[in-house]
């Protein structure tokens, strides 16, 4: 919890020596509270005060990084329970699991497939973040070698035998992997291992009292980068525990649970998909998938993007006139809004149809057609302004514009605003644009 200027003042020497550059200790304290100066500006502050001040300024959920070379996945530093309160910051890291029992050849094949995976969503390219290697029998160091030989991404090592994990960690020189598998019986040896290799350490459990006790113990061994591996038998319990951990950290500033959560999504018949989606929406910083399949990873990557989009800043595209498939003066003119999902849905469909068109993107403050219309941000006036402002008339010979089907009601008003133009109403959904272009125009 952040301290007030007065609270900070009480921890300072209160000698008004001015060596920090401020006239009084109180003035310096106020600047500190506003995070405009560093505590190191005071040469006389006591060690005890330093410790207290450092603790008070630490984020309520510790930032944990899993790193390999240039590639890094971070979780933590979150500040709110609900995304509308501000935003969620560090997107849940998605890792794909391989097991030593699969053998190096199968592991290599799997990694190669995942490494080749990239999917595009509204102009952004998504990939998975890394891999988890589980020691479940077989040669662990060989498995780690097989993974590392085929990817540069960060790694999570999973197992309950510290001596086996050690054989894998030895290979990952200079990296910052995560260790998963410590519990009440193994925490000490695991903490030693994490310390030795400067790895982060996840502690496994489903009881908050025990988990809090263990994170404190691990801290005394000098390991500060801790993750909570929440292992619960059903979705309801996982939701309750995840919520409680986040609340304890954010509302009670309870340090022993102020760490990111890691969730392993398991279960057949689509259960893993549901566990994963809950983890993304409800507070997991890291997510490990039991299997890789594009039809599952794609929706999860999209969900992650949606949940972690800053609600104050919808993803927008620049308003203007866009050329698709090299339009000519007689090509159709389609109108839409500058919400990125809307723009990309429409642009992709037109592009896919192979037919040329002009796409006029109106400034609707980043809202979709229906939302912008309801909010008065996409009306006849704005559409007419866009058509005139972007000099559409100079580019085309056929003065005809197509409105989105959802705003068919606007066609009369647009006709009044643009008397020289023919106004047509297109389909409601982007997916129906190609057949509309082929049949109706």
């Amino acid at each position, binding site marked *: 919890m952040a301290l007030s200027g007065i609270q900070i003042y009480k921890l300072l020497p209160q000698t008004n020596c001015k060596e920090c550059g401020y006239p009084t200790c109180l003035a310096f304290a106020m600047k500190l509270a506003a995070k405009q100066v560093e505590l190191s500006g005071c040469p006389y502050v006591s060690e005890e005060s330093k410790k207290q001040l450092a603790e008070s300024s630490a984020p309520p959920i510790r930032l944990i990084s899993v790193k390999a070379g240039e590639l890094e996945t971070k979780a933590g530093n979150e500040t709110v329970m609900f995304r509308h309160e501000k935003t969620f910051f560090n997107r849940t890291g998605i890792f794909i699991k391989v097991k030593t029992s699969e053998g190096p050849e199968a592991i290599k094949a799997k990694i190669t497939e995942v490494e080749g995976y990239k999917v595009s969503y509204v102009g952004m390219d998504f990939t998975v973040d890394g891999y988890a290697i589980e020691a479940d029998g077989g040669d662990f160091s060989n498995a780690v070698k097989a993974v590392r030989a085929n990817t540069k991404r960060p790694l999570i090592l999973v197992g309950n035998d510290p001596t086996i994990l050690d054989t894998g960690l030895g290979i990952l020189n200079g990296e910052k992997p995560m260790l998963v598998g410590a519990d009440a019986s193994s925490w000490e040896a695991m903490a030693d291992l994490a310390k030795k290799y400067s790895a982060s350490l996840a502690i496994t459990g489903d009881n908050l009292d025990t988990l809090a006790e263990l994170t404190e113990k691990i801290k005394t061994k000098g390991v500060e980068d801790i993750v909570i591996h929440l292992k619960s038998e059903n979705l309801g*319990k996982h939701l309750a525990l995840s919520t409680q951990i986040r609340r304890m950290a954010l509302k009670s500033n309870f340090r022993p649970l102020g760490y990111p959560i890691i969730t392993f999504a398991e279960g057949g018949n689509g259960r893993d998909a549901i566990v994963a989606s809950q983890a993304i929406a409800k507070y997991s910083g890291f997510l490990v998938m039991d299997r890789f399949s594009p039809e599952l990873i794609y929706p999860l990557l999209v969900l992650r993007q949606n949940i972690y*989009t800053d609600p104050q800043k919808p993803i927008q595209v620049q308003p203007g006139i866009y050329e698709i498939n090299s339009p000519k003066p007689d090509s159709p003119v389609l109108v839409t809004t500058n919400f990125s999902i809307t723009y990309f849905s429409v642009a992709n469909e037109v592009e896919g149809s192979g037919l040329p068109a002009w796409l006029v993107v109106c400034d609707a403050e980043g809202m979709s057609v229906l939302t912008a219309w309801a909010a008065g941000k996409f009306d006849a006036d704005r559409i007419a302004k866009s058509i005139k402002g972007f000099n559409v008339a100079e580019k085309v010979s056929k003065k005809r514009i197509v409105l989105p089907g959802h705003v068919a009601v606007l066609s009369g008003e647009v006709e009044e605003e643009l008397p020289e133009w023919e106004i047509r109403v297109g389909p409601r959904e982007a997916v129906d644009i190609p057949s509309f272009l082929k049949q109706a125009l």
Partner: protein
Amino acid sequence: MPIEIPKDKWGGKIRTTVLGATAAEGGTRSHTVTIGGESSLPFMHFETPTPNTPCIAIEIKDRKPEDWSPILTDIWGEAMNSPVSWSKAAELAGADIILMWLTLEDTPQDAVNAAKSVLGATGLPLIVYGPGQVDKDNELLVAVSEATKGEKLVLGICEDKNYRTIVATAMANGHLVTARTPMDVNLSKQLNILISDMGMSNERVIMDPTTGALGYGIEYGYSVMERLRLAALQGDQMTQGAMIVTPGFEAWKTKEAKVGTGVPTAWGEWKERAINWETLTAVALIETGAAIVVLRHPESVKRVKTAIGELMTVS
């Protein structure tokens, strides 16, 4: 040392709404469905019990739709040819409620016949939606409402541009209504106030805050639902209605679900992708407080049902 878990204490409560009426209550349903009644955020069983389980409505139409994904027409097959066979198949697939859309081609008599035939085919509570054109909606829904007096159907969709006729006929014939607003907390409150001003009891209004599918604006619907639920728990009476959302409708109009060819290979196998699209949209919305999710594919119904079961487990 045991940790003290922070518990939220709220003054407000979600309204309890009952769909359908049994013979003893003046209808013909084999059982009723009760939704709402929570006094905590969704599934926070450690604070207050969750009195009612979220429900799944399966969406059908009274005429076979022409524009549904082949994945859906394949799985429902012949059953789609009549609302009787379709609603029976939906009940077998695990529906708690049937939601039937009427179509523009319907005469009032067609609509009445369709509604009555579904009521005869299943014992589940029924939601009936007009085709979405003001005059047609009013014409068809009034006829259905009068012909099914006392069944406690849900009629819809009431929107700010058209709610009076639907609300009036629901009040006169003992039905409920759905009130839909486009992803906005204040618009949602406003429509509830307008409906309440007509004298409709609040318990008979189910709120549809509208959602977008995964990838197509789900985050807007998601956050509006979280905000509505928080406002309701804080005591705002005009946001305390139980919520219905239509992830099936939204998911199945996306390209990801609807189209199988000419899409990026990174999208993966079509059918499983489509079911994931519908399922993940639905589960995310259930976790924000949806009392009814309206779905289309039987496999999604199965998966969402399993998820609801796990979420309702108190441990």
